[in-house]
């Protein structure tokens, strides 16, 4: 009687351990699924901010033919005309700073890399945390003459 009771106790313990292992696997699956969803959300969010930023129109300037052009159009024009001067780079910075500020305020470290032909311009502070996730949204404009990549870390 005492031996049978002992065996029953062992059987329950084994059952409980099996249950615990199954539960651990389930938790791992749920956790990995949740992470993927978050990653998709952040990628989608980055894409939305990037689209809006590139579609915004330049500040009006008297007599400027580019006053109603979008930032994307302006970047393409600059890639054709050659190296942008300091004033043009400041103009780009003024157009992208708001988006970078918004994303840094709500999501994490954000920076933008614009490639105009062979030239590369960085806006915002590049921040790479060891082991941290970095999300990116890359756009090619003007047949690849302009590449704009928006990064989000964390």
């Amino acid at each position, binding site marked *: 009687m*005492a031996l049978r009771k002992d065996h029953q106790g062992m059987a329950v313990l084994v059952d409980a351990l099996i249950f615990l292992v199954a539960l651990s696997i*389930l938790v791992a699956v749920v956790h990995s699924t949740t992470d993927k969803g978050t990653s998709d959300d952040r990628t989608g969010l980055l894409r939305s*901010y990037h689209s809006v930023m590139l579609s915004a129109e330049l500040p009006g300037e008297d007599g400027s033919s580019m006053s109603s052009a979008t930032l994307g159009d302006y970047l393409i024009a600059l890639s054709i005309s050659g190296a942008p001067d300091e004033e043009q780079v400041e103009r780009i910075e003024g157009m992208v700073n*708001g*988006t970078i500020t918004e994303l840094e305020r709500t999501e994490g470290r954000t920076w933008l890399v614009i490639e105009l032909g062979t030239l590369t311009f960085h806006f915002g502070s590049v921040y790479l945390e060891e082991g941290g996730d970095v999300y990116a949204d890359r756009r090619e404009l003007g047949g690849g003459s302009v590449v704009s990549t928006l990064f989000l870390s964390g």
Partner: protein
Amino acid sequence: MDREGVGGFLESILAVMVVITASSVFMVVLASGTLQVDGDFAKGDLISWLAENGLYSENGVIHMDGSNEDMDALSFPEEISGMTLTYRSSGNSTPIRSLNLGSRPLGDVLAFQLPLLIELNGRVVAGIMEVRAWH
């Protein structure tokens, strides 16, 4: 009850405790997962509703000189009784347009912000729509 019997009895108690602990963890995991799914669902519904009523557009432009006259006639999505919408330009915290719709907030508030293009003084600029909605 001899030593083996006592051992078996203690093992049974230990096993029951393990099962109870594991079940509790399981319930918490399930509950947290459910809450998150509900929140996402409500947000998606709300974004669709805002787009259908011309208050948000993913690819289009929202004009900031819109009238607020017809806003009282809006019927909210299910489980939403009121909301506030604030439009502003990106990187600038000064509101350009604010809408208070429905009843005053009661209980939990769902809050998020979305990027969008807004027309301001005849120019299309990068903007932000801040949404606060409640049941």
